[in-house]
Every structure is written in C-alpha cells, then in structure tokens.
C-alpha cells in the first residue's frame, strides 16, 4: 500500500472567536476485514485508520474513533474556534500502530 497521504483544508487567517471549518482527507484503503481474497477464499484482514486527533497549539480540540464502516480515503470535516495564532496538528493512527500526521499554521487576529 502506498504511504497514506494526508491533505488538509485549514484557513490561513481567522478572526479571534471565529468558528472555522477544517477539512481533512487521507488516502487509505480502510480494509474492512469483510472482503474475501478471490483466490484463497480467505478473509482479507482488517486494516484501517482507527483514530483521528486534531490539536490546536498542543491542545486536543477534536478527536474521533473510526470503525470499518468509515469509507476508504477517509474524509472528515469539523469546526473549531480560532482562539490564537499557532499550529494545528492532525494525526491518524493505523491499526498497525503507525501514526500519520500533518500540521498547518493559522494566524488569528483581533
């Protein structure tokens, strides 16, 4: 499997107190564990992203636990308050323990 690629849509600028919309996407098969290998008839083991965490200057503002019913190339959009300038960090945890992350800077003005 190619290395999962995260993509973000985070506003570069915001006014303090503004509610901003964050959109994220990561390329990942999200193998549900329900599919069968056509040749062997055996079930292809589950391998999904099971956890997504969004931090804003180190503080968790949103997180999510995912099950195999989340579609391949998982997309998630949520909102957060623009409180101060800094960095938003996003991380995706794979069943195999690997963590993929990406961050984005945000400038917050009065």
């Amino acid at each position: 499997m190619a290395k999962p690629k995260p993509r973000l849509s985070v506003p570069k600028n915001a006014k303090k107190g503004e509610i901003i919309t964050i959109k994220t996407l990561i390329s990942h098969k999200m193998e549900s564990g329900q599919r069968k290998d056509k040749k062997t008839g055996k079930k292809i083991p589950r391998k999904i992203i099971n956890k997504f965490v969004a931090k804003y200057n180190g503080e968790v503002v949103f997180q999510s636990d995912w099950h195999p019913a989340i579609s391949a190339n998982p997309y998630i959009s949520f909102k957060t308050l623009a409180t101060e300038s800094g960095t938003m960090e996003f991380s995706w945890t794979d069943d195999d323990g690997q963590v993929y992350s990406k961050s984005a800077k945000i400038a917050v003005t009065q």
Partner: protein
Amino acid sequence: MKSEISANAMTRRDMLAVAGAGILTAATIGFVPGSAEAKPADVEMAVKKLIGNKATKSGRIKIDMPQIAENGNTVPMSVTVDSPMSKDDYVKTVHVFAELNPRPDVASFHFTPRSGVAYVSTRMRMAKTQNIVAVAEMSNGDVYMAKTEVKVTIGGCGG
C-alpha cells in the same frame, strides 16, 4: 471576512480523485454478501455498552444524509447537535451506528468546548438500505438519540 486556504489545500483534483476511487472500488466491495449483519437490537446493545442504561431523549440532533445513496461504499453523513458548546454545556461525544451493516458501530466523534459547533461530516459504508442512528452524550450527562433511513441502490455489498 476573508479566509485563505493553506498551501496544503485539497484541490478539486484531489476531490475528483477520491470520487474516482469510490467508483473504482464499487466492484471491490467493502462488505461480503451473505455475511452476518447487525440487527437493530445489536445497535441497542452497542449503545448500552457506551452509555449504560440511561434513557435517551429525542431532538437536538440533525443527521444530514441523502435519502437515496447511489453508492454504498461512500455515503456522505453529517451530524449537527444543537448546543451552546460552552465549557459548562457542550456535546461531549456523538456515536454513530448502522442498524444493518455487518457491525453496528460506525464512529465516535469527541467534541470539546473549543469545537464552537458540534458538527462533523464524513463518508461511510452502507451494506444496504437501513437506519443510521446517532447518539449524543452531553456534558451534563443527558443523552439524545436520532435516526434516519437511507436507501441504498448499489450496496457496499456489490448489489
């Protein structure tokens, strides 16, 4: 009020690529036909596991999904819960379930007072026409529940 998208923006090409991947994988299904499926009672059990024996209230939750989903591999789902989202009164978690998928659990979304709005949008797999259930746990312990039926034409089950 102008918002600029960061350099890491999802371009239209990315969105199309994702949509394309969804169509390609329709043939390589997410779910196996004939496998055991959850029942509404399983959702009840899954809910109990998460919130205990609390009574659930109706209202406050809005589940936004298409009436008819063309492709069960990727069905858009948004949930919004009416709440001030202040530190004394906010939505802690929204759990989503699918009554007739192989497994009932879909996802749990954990909000904070810094969320501003209890809103989340994602895409889910649906094996067939069924109810999608959302359960919202509030910071004061109250629990709300809502459900919506989504018809599925091509199931995440190949037909």
